[in-house]
């Protein structure tokens, strides 16, 4: 019975996602492929990040509002270890590690930062942890901005994409010639969705395991976990590391999608986007954020066109306002009619934070 309901939900989420993509074609008669690729790439990257956040919040109940910093640590560590140019003068660093080595170190660094940020979680619960994580994420961002000699500060990092693009399979170039999209973004998009695939496999293996069960027990009641002889603090730290590692990977992909990286990418808004995606998709689910992400990005990128249809005389700034108004209305409707998200189970509705 549960599987049947699940598959119905799954079909519902899938059809909404397909409808959203259809909407892109409908609203953009010309150049739909390019817009769609851009959208699917962002959806993949943010979806991956939301999957990581779900390990924190959905599985373990940790209110993490510093997710952007995990993405940032992953991105900065990986990029700085590879050949790149940084700062106002464009200081060129020609030596560095190969992409895959740098990537692994970047992910590990993000996980380590997760451990560090998780340390206050030893004593803090609920909203207090949220405040600490959001503050830590801002400290990270401001540090990156001000350490200009290393990170390039507000001038950012450039000339790093080749490290990754040189692995691009040739069929992408052929496809891009025929369909008229950017080959390098096609490769980032493919990498993002491959990452999602393997991350989902990895987490599926964990979610029903004794370890996943222990995390959910921490989410439900830490005191009871302690009373049974389990180290709740260590479980929380492990959860922080895993989710942060996944976020680190998504941060690297985000950097390659942008082609240049500045600290402003990792403002708190990024964290809130990821939260919205997770809630849309279904808190506590594994694949939910993927659908949540597709729908979120269709809304974000297409509502200004919808708004334009509604308000012909509005200017760009007004349209941007209408866009977020529509996003808000949509999330409100979703929370009223499907409070557990697209794929979430009603019995496991996780939005009531203790």
């Amino acid at each position, binding site marked *: 019975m549960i599987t049947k309901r699940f598959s119905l939900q799954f079909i519902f989420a899938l059809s909404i996602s397909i409808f959203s993509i259809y909407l892109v074609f409908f609203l953009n008669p010309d150049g739909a492929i390019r817009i769609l690729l851009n959208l699917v790439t962002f959806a993949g990257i943010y979806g991956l990040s939301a999957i990581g956040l779900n390990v924190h919040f959905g599985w373990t109940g940790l209110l993490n509002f510093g997710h952007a910093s995990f993405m940032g640590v992953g991105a900065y560590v990986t990029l700085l270890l590879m050949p790149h140019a940084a700062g106002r003068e464009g200081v060129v660093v020609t030596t560095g590690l190969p992409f895959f080595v740098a990537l692994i170190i970047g992910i590990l660094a993000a996980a380590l930062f997760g451990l560090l940020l998780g340390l206050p979680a030893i004593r803090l619960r609920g909203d207090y942890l949220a405040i600490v994580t959001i503050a830590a994420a801002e400290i990270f961002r401001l540090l990156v901005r001000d350490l200009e000699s290393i990170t390039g500060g507000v001038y950012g990092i450039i000339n790093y994409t080749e490290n990754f693009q040189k692995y691009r399979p040739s069929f992408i170039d052929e496809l891009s010639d025929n369909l008229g999209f950017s080959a390098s973004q096609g490769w980032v998009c493919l990498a993002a969705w491959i990452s999602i695939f393997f991350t989902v496999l*990895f987490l599926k*293996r*964990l979610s029903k*395991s*004794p*370890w*996943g*069960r*222990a995390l*959910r*027990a921490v*989410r*439900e*009641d830490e*005191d*009871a*976990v*302690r*009373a*049974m*002889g*389990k*180290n*709740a603090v260590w*479980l929380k730290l*492990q959860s922080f590391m*895993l989710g942060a590692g996944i976020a680190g990977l998504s941060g690297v992909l985000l950097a390659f999608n942008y082609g240049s990286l500045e600290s402003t990418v990792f403002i708190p808004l990024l964290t809130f986007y990821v939260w919205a995606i997770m809630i849309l998709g279904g808190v506590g689910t594994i694949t939910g954020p993927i659908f949540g992400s597709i729908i979120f990005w269709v809304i974000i990128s297409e509502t200004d066109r919808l708004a334009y249809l509604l308000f012909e005389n509005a200017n760009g700034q007004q349209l941007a306002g209408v866009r977020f108004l529509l996003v808000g209305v949509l999330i409100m409707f979703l929370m009223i009619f499907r409070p557990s998200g697209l794929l979430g189970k009603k*019995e*496991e*509705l*996780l939005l009531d934070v203790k």
Partner: protein
Amino acid sequence: MLNNLISVKNLKKSFGGITAVDIKELSFIEGELTSVIGPNGAGKTTFFDLISGFQNADSGDIFLKEKNISNSQPYKIARMGMVRTFQLTKVFDRMTVMENLLFSGSDVNNDSFLRSILKLNSQKVYENSLKDKANEIMNDLNIGHMADSYARELSGGQKKLLELARAIINEPEILLLDEPLAGVNPKLAEDILSLIKKLSEDGITIVMVEHNIEAVMKISERVVVLAEGSLIADGSPNEIRTNKNVIEAYLGKDDE
């Protein structure tokens, strides 16, 4: 045999100016079923929190199996074989009854990230034997039919049973029960009482805080009375029944 499993010395805890617990010496003997009673605010739950590590004492020492556990982490104390339940039930609401039990019964190594990723056959075998054990316990406690329900769907009494079941599967040597009969209907209270008695006969040392004096007198081998944080009486149920201090504490001083 009269081994002091738990003993406390000069244990003190106060909140602001109010002394919650002030006990000079108190021991619990291996295999005995002891009840801790006292008027509201006598410091019974605080006393439990102190010996299970959920609160730190201001001063004094707590010994478990002759090891000083003052200021130890709760999970370390639990691993030494002392498991507690809570006055307000703390079940894992959004997990099934079965999962509640499996988590509690699962060995710490079995929970490890590495083992869960590798999914070795040994883990599967272990989980299956744990499931059998959980089923057995749930059937004994008449919650077997709820195994796949979410714990939050249980009634208050069933939650009490689930908490007990969860403690039992952990295979404790010492069980601290904080008001196991609170908010439970009389029929179920009978069942829980006989279960506690059976556990005691199986050799588990039980210390229980309970307000239902009738029940306490019926099953306890020893009764300890606290009032305003201090120990005022300690003895067999019959001795306590006639103890002048106890009657005073419950009914107030007789103005002669």
